């Protein structure tokens, strides 16, 4: 027994001895953040931090960042209320921006400059939020097995000739939800449901994995076409990983719905919170994010398209040629999101 009691007291004593250190550690973040700029971001750190560092270098304003999932950050923002330290909310899809707007956590910021830089369908009509980059949901096909003349629209993939040839990820994914929401917005729920009923049985396998996995499956021959976000293909083409490059080289990109409403797009975007205490800096940041320089970086870093028409896309993206994008205001994607999910549930899209 005696032997046992000795080692136990060591961690305990060390624990008590460290109390002061621990208290100091626990209390650090309560220090005031006044005069700085506080951001809740659903866009992950590596895709935003360098730009914020640049902002700090230009303006001298220190920027503090918390990243997380869009809805979790929104819940935090809501429950913290007007005392929330957050000045700016960044998200990676229009649905969340719309939800934040509906929840009343964003304030109106109408700026001539931003309105001029960003097309009207990529921002909220009142100025609660602004799109910063565009990603397109495209069809990727196996060069060897698919003749691009077979392809036309998302809708056409429900045809019987595509049975067992389509790969797409789970309907849990926001970009699939947005795609279906855009269909509901443009052609109504009834037609969309009918399409889903025929489209889902065409899946080559139960939906699983991410968009890159769908592209790899096309390359490996498990399916012939996949619906994915453009930046994932861009990321694979520019990847250092040989296997990813090789998979990307076996597929081509097709812009769907070019003869109709255009390819479905979504945005990442930004808004100023109601609780913002550093309003001047927040407005500065929004203006900064829409400058040519930021737009260039923001787009290139994640293989996305700039929202600003005057800024060209990266070389990788330009290689895919120009395309017609859906002109639907992206807030509609948020409006129909719940309906889209329910329709996908009914169609058995896992």
């Amino acid at each position: 027994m005696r032997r046992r009691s000795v080692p136990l007291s060591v961690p305990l004593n060390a624990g008590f001895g460290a109390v002061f250190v621990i208290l100091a550690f626990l209390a650090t973040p309560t220090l005031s953040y006044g005069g700085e700029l506080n951001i809740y971001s659903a866009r992950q750190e590596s895709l935003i931090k360098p730009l914020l560092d640049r902002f700090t270098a230009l303006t001298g304003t220190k920027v503090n960042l918390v990243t997380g999932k869009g809805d979790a950050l929104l819940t935090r923002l809501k429950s913290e209320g007007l005392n929330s330290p957050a000045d700016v909310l960044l998200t990676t899809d229009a649905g969340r921006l719309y939800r934040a707007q509906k929840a009343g956590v964003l304030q109106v910021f109408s700026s001539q400059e931003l309105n001029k830089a960003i097309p009207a369908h990529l921002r909220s009509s009142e100025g609660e939020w602004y799109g910063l980059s565009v990603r397109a949901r495209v069809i990727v096909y196996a060069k060897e097995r698919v003749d691009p003349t077979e392809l036309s629209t998302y809708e056409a993939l429900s045809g019987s000739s595509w049975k067992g040839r389509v790969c797409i990820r789970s309907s849990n994914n926001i970009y699939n939800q947005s795609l279906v929401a855009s269909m509901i917005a443009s052609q109504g729920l009834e037609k969309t449901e009918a399409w889903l009923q025929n489209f889902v049985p065409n899946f080559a396998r139960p939906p699983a994995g991410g968009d890159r996995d769908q592209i790899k499956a096309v390359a490996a021959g498990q399916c012939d076409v996949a619906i994915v976000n453009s930046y994932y293909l861009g990321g694979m083409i520019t990847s250092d990983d040989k296997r990813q490059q090789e998979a990307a080289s076996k597929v081509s990109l097709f812009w769907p719905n070019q003869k109709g409403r255009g390819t479905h797009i979504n945005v990442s975007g930004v808004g100023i919170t109601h609780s913002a205490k550093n309003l001047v800096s927040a407005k500065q940041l929004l203006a900064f994010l829409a400058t040519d320089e930021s737009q260039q970086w923001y787009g290139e870093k994640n293989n996305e398209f700039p929202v600003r028409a005057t800024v060209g896309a990266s070389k990788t993206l330009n290689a895919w040629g120009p395309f017609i994008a859906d002109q639907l205001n992206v807030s509609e994607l948020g409006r129909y999101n719940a309906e889209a999910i329910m329709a996908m549930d009914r169609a058995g899209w896992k």
Partner: protein
Amino acid sequence: MIVAIPVLVIVASLGQPFSDAWQHLFDTVLSDYISNSLLLMAGVGFGTLLLGVSAAWLTAMCDFPGRKILSWAFLLPMAMPAYIIAYTYTGILDFSGPIQSTLRVMFGWSYGDYYFPQIRSLGGAICMLSLVLYPYVYMLVRIAFLEQSIAVLEASRNLGKKPWETFFLVALPISRPAIVAGVSLVLMETLADYGTVAYFGVSAFTTGIFRTWYGLGELTTAAQLCAFLLLFVFALIMAERWSRQRLRFHHNSANKKLVRMQLKGWHAYIALLIGCLIVGLGFVIPASQLLMWASSRWQENLNSEFLSLLFNSFSLAAITAICCVIVATFLAYTKRVFNSRLELGAVGVASLGYAVPGTVIAVGVLIPVAWLDNKIDFLSRVWFDIPTGLLLSGTIGILVFAYVVRFLSVSLNTVESGLSAIKPSIDESARSLGARPAQVLKRVHLPILRSSLLTATLLVFVDVLKELPTTLILRPFNFNTLAVRTYELASDERLVDAALPALAIVAIGLLPVLLITKSILNERASHE
């Protein structure tokens, strides 16, 4: 009681009106969520029981070459976050992965020509979770085997029972509290798992909760789903408690030296093979894959920022582990001394947190804390004209509190199962000799409980290291951990870059595993 508040916040959501979303869930996906979650629980429960108990039996009761190494190597998979092992095995076994690609090239097959088990499936999820969760069972059951009265086992052997009979008729029933504690931890963690099932496209209850919250925008309905999940877990725990109400599992002092069964010849080889297979699948293969990925990119990713990640993760895990064990010992002990209904209930509720997905716990913490903050701010403005802002929200203190809520049951189960092995007569003798309850705890129980306490610390430490969702939503500005970094990179499908922080989690997790197991292993030796 404070620890129970977040769980109660979730359960309180049942008091709110049920929205139309319920009708939709009933009509379409709810039955899928339930059946998949039950199958997952059954599969993982069986898998971890099989792996954990056999590993514990082999290393505690038998002797064969390699036993000593295996007895700590069996713990290694614990340091591997489930979603990371899922990512790595998918990388290896998927249709477009190296194994299937090689097979196709070798035999000239193409898609559909051959059968290969689909890794991204319910079965795959069961395998992944079993491989990383069995150490919970192993640890607790191993201690139970070691602390079992040798006399009982010897009696069984002397009565002519074969080793297998001794195992099933004596050792297993005596170890029931430990087995139950281990398996219930595993089941709760399985129910709370989101990363693995989401990646594998298995629509389980957790994916349903998040789909309802994120997708349908119905936070209340999501909380209600979660509340039902909690009621289910609570019912399971109560049913188990009730079924062993009459049973007592105390044993006499274990001071006698255990004679391990010597395995000879092919028996020893089989034991070694089983051990290597478990550790290989659960740790060596995925870790080497991570190492391969990490080695190709380590120069870019290893920088001063990485060191701060290490520091943050380590200190959070250490602080939480100590807090959890202190709270758990306090609760388990109050329960033992007072044994009142109210206490039992509070302890029961407090330990449910483990079955709740981290994000939901985070919301359960966030809402009351932000409410309290705003109230304090309001009162202070009215009375003193001083705005206090948010005092607690967004501090590391709140993060630690949320971890304690979430991981308390890990430490509590471990401490309780250790405590239940101490005969009440020991308490009584100490008390009759004039010792106060606190003295009994300090001088009698804590020394005996040492290995249970260390195990509890270790389990919580490793769990916090791996923890992701709670950290994501509650952390202060500019505060990152290894798990957050791993997740951000992995979710962007950049596994190669995610490998380094993932390996670091594994490495830091190994540190206490090695230290503590060494001291637990020496336990026996110190009696000799």
